[in-house]
């Protein structure tokens, strides 16, 4: 679990261009101050963000290119925080996907000012966080893991997981059980039995 480290000393830097953006009133978690920066928001040593509303982008398509150019290769992570506030967004988004590839920017979409503010705050608060939360290391009790394991094949649910393991005593026994033995358990219909038995016996690799 990543603990949001609060770098209390530093605050979010905001470009004066953003004056009047509703995001600013929604930034409550962190202190922010205006500062003369090329980006719209500076969210850490190497992280910055440009804010773009699609409505504006449609009227002034060249704006965002100039802004990206003005970053001039600074910052490692350059977020393009795009607010989707129009209905037919397909063409604009297609173009921005291409742009992000060419100009080294990462597109993040949001659908409201509140969500945009949340992203801004998240980037700031995770400034020094490790990526362990997305590396898939979670500690869970045996029961939860057991249920997770048994319920991977579709259509097998939590109750089934409990019944099969309690009927056979252990997961190993459940894995080795014969189909006829499983079919006796309440709740285990033919389909489930067939799926379970085929999955545990199926080789991981398709043999040629």
């Amino acid at each position, binding site marked *: 679990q990543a603990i949001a480290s609060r770098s209390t000393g530093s605050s979010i830097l905001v470009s004066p261009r953003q004056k009047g953006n509703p995001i600013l009133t929604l930034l409550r978690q962190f202190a922010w101050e205006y500062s003369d920066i090329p980006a719209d928001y500076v969210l850490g040593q190497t992280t910055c963000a440009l804010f773009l509303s699609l409505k504006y982008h449609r009227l002034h398509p060249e704006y965002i290119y100039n802004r990206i150019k003005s970053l001039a290769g600074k910052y490692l992570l350059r977020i393009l925080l795009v607010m989707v506030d129009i209905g037919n967004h397909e063409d604009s988004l297609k173009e921005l996907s291409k742009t992000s590839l060419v100009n080294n920017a990462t597109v993040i979409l949001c659908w409201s000012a509140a969500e945009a503010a949340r992203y801004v*705050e998240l980037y700031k608060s995770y400034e020094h966080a490790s990526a362990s939360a997305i590396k898939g290391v979670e500690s869970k009790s045996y029961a939860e893991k057991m249920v997770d394991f048994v319920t991977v094949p579709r259509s097998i649910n939590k109750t089934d997981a409990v019944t099969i393991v309690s009927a056979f005593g252990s997961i190993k026994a459940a894995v080795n059980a014969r189909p006829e033995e499983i079919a006796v358990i309440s709740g285990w219909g033919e389909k489930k039995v067939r799926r379970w038995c085929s999955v545990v016996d199926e080789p991981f690799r398709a043999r040629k």
Partner: protein
Amino acid sequence: MATEKWYPMSSANGDRQPVKLSLPLKYQQELFQELREKDELVILARGLGLLRLLTNLLHAYDAAGNNLILLVGADERENGWIGEALAEHAAISMSPKARGLNVVNTDAMSVGTREKMYALGGIFSVTSRILVVDLLTGLLNPEIITGVVALHADRIVATSLEAFILRIYRQRNKVGFLKALSDNPEPFTTGFAPLSTMMRNLFLKNVSIWPRFQVCVAQSLEGKKRAEVIELEVAMSDSMRDIQNAIMECVEVSIGELKKANSGLEMEEWNLDSALHKQFDVVIRRQLDPVWHRVSWKTKQIVNDLSVLRGMLHTLLTYDAVSFNRHLDTILAAHSPPPGSTRQTQSPWLFLDAAQTIFTTAKRRVYSGNSSKDGAEDAESLRPVLEEQPKWAILAEVLEEIDRDLYFNPILRDDSNGTILIMCTDTAQCRQLREYLQIMHVHLKRDEDYGEEGEHDASAAFMMRKKLRDYLKWKKEFAKISVALFKENQAALDSATATRGPPNQSLRGKAPTNKRRRVRGGGNTGTGSSRASNGSILASEDRPMEVATLMSEIQPTEEEAAQKEDVVADPLDDMEDYFQLYDMQDLVVVHAYDGDMDEHVLEEVKPRYIIMYEPDTSFVRRVEVYRSSHNDRNVRVYFLYYGGSVEEQRYLSSVRREKDAFTRLIKEKSTMSVVMTLDAHGVEDPQEAFLRTINTRIAGGGRLAATAEPPRVVVDVREFGSSLPSLLHGRSMVIVPCMLTVGDYILSPNICIERKSIKDLISSFKDGRLYNQTETMFQYYKSPMLLIEFDQNKSFTLEPFADLSGSLASVSANNASSDLQSKLVLLTLAFPKLRIIWSSSPYQTAEIFESLKTQEPEPDPIHAVNVGLDGGQRAEDQTFNRVPQDMLRVVPGVTSKNIKNLIIEIGSLKEVANASVDELEPAVGKESGRQIHRFFNKNVLDDD
């Protein structure tokens, strides 16, 4: 086969070959002729023998020989059935050229073998995923295909693999035949002009609709050879009705909660009434599907609850009282609160009085306290009640009636056996009935004292007593197991409540004390469930003394002891020694409804009497077809159902829905034909129209380089489950299916794309897969991209319905890192160079890919395949079977690093489960090996 017909037909080389068909009824013959003559979509009512039609058709082609015919969309069981039927046909008509069905359904068959098989020709049923790859790689040349038959046409939507296959086939082969079959009319009626859309996907111009009420069908089935049907409405017992009502109340409240939590959604249709009729949990799930990634955790839980409740409605009618109670016990245990939960995080229905009613009534059907008048708790003891299912008695009566009937008019000279066939929903039900029939006339000594007439009544007392004994034994063990399993949860919960609420109950759940009952007060009927301190229901415990008296009450009597133990699972080892064939003459056969297999059962058993223990629309039709097909077989059908129950409603609504669907289809067909004649282009050659729309775009884009070399995309073969490859192909890109280790789509030597649907995204964040995939992409490619693809019909946003109110604080601290947005943030922080593509649908993705590829060199498939492979590995070694791997990934001790070794060193899950620590050690190391071993071998029975 009763009526057979010699059907002369000419094969390609002109010689005449007689073919024997087995289509006795007029409508079947007509339909067959029609299908032979032209390409069309046939929609037949359920139970009218679609598979029989198909096998006859295939046999006609098979016997002609010298062709290559593909069967698309058949599942595994159908393959078996069709294969058998074809072999049978071939034997009957003794056609030298018939070769039967070739099934290609696993990757086990190597590329070389497949190529050889295709070259030989014949009839093939190929799994779509394999077929599409074979067509794209040129292993199977579309031009040499004689024809394609698509089964389950209702499942072929524009983006499906089958539609992709048909498109490739039609693009390259304009002369081969194409026929589509379906016996499921409902999907053709949802959406805008669904039938014509469907026809376009299938590249077909004609549709032929055959409902039960079609004149020809009705005439064939309603002649003088109709089956005799006796309908029996059975009343539910009072307690069953109480439980059903209580469940319905729970459903109502759950739906109310859903409405409250998701006010933005359209939910007028969600009411109790529809709940009785349809598979309401599925309907609701489908309604929520577009926003599924946005709904709160709680909504998901309630939707799950609804499935559980619906299951309960079904089991109430099918399980016996003891098994039902046992089932409820398990449900309760599985829904026991997770650690750290509060009232808010639990299933709302568990808090209702109605839930209490369900559990106490279910228990009272099994045993109850001898509530003494003075009300003193200690004076009471438990006494078995053992309510029997009302249908059992009726079944016994029916059997007796049949017996009498057989006695009075003994030999009705006809072709059928004297067999009695009992049909019910599933094998569990079969087992229950079999057991009941065996034992119903065995009586307790005591009962005989009551008088003579008691002797004749069938009773399940024996069976129920045995079940109760098993149940009590099971319950003792189960209590231990659930303690073992959920002890940690309970402890966590207890400490939580102890600090919060009054500490008087903080020991609850640790030991089976009887304190709990006293809390409830008023010892009315044995023991019900009691409530946990936070208000949800808690599994009840009986006092050991009471259980002991109950046990002694139902000790096996002499007669019971004399009964042999029933065999639940017979390994059939010494078949020869112990078994012999029974004479079909006087048998009672119990069978479960099994779709098209039922036809076979009827033909083989040739029953004189059929008892439908539960209603089933298609089986009624099958009996009709069976009866009409055989002049000399008499059938009497008994039809049992519970009045006013879910079962009855479900049957009625399924009949109604099918009829409605057909009516609408006929209406649409009548208007559709006009459209077709007017707009000849769109329908004449749909694939051309399709390409035309796309080609204009390319021309406008000024892609001059493309004319020299068509744009190419390397696609991982595992990606063919999604619709994207099909759409890319539709945009005239060349699809190169390859086994990729890194990435899903390779657009250019630099651009590698990992595609994630929202569901995948969530799960791959959870198990850390995405992190590793991104890491490896960065090792081999310059511009790795993550494609976040929303579904066409899903709402294009990640925002949850829950109030964000803009600040981190509003999302509780432990939740902050668990939602999707924050994980995305972490991912981009970890990989600043990772580009993210947001796409609202696969269609949009195809466009984006196209624009990304412009001015980029084409990718090299051979390089793409070799990327990420370790020295000695070959591409063919790459893994295919997803589900067992996903399961393995959940096992503690398995990490993203050692899973590769495990998969290579050890063959399957079963082998991993049975491996010892020493065997696991070389693959994963000592510590992980021990963890894995412990996970599989932990015994919940002995509490360690």
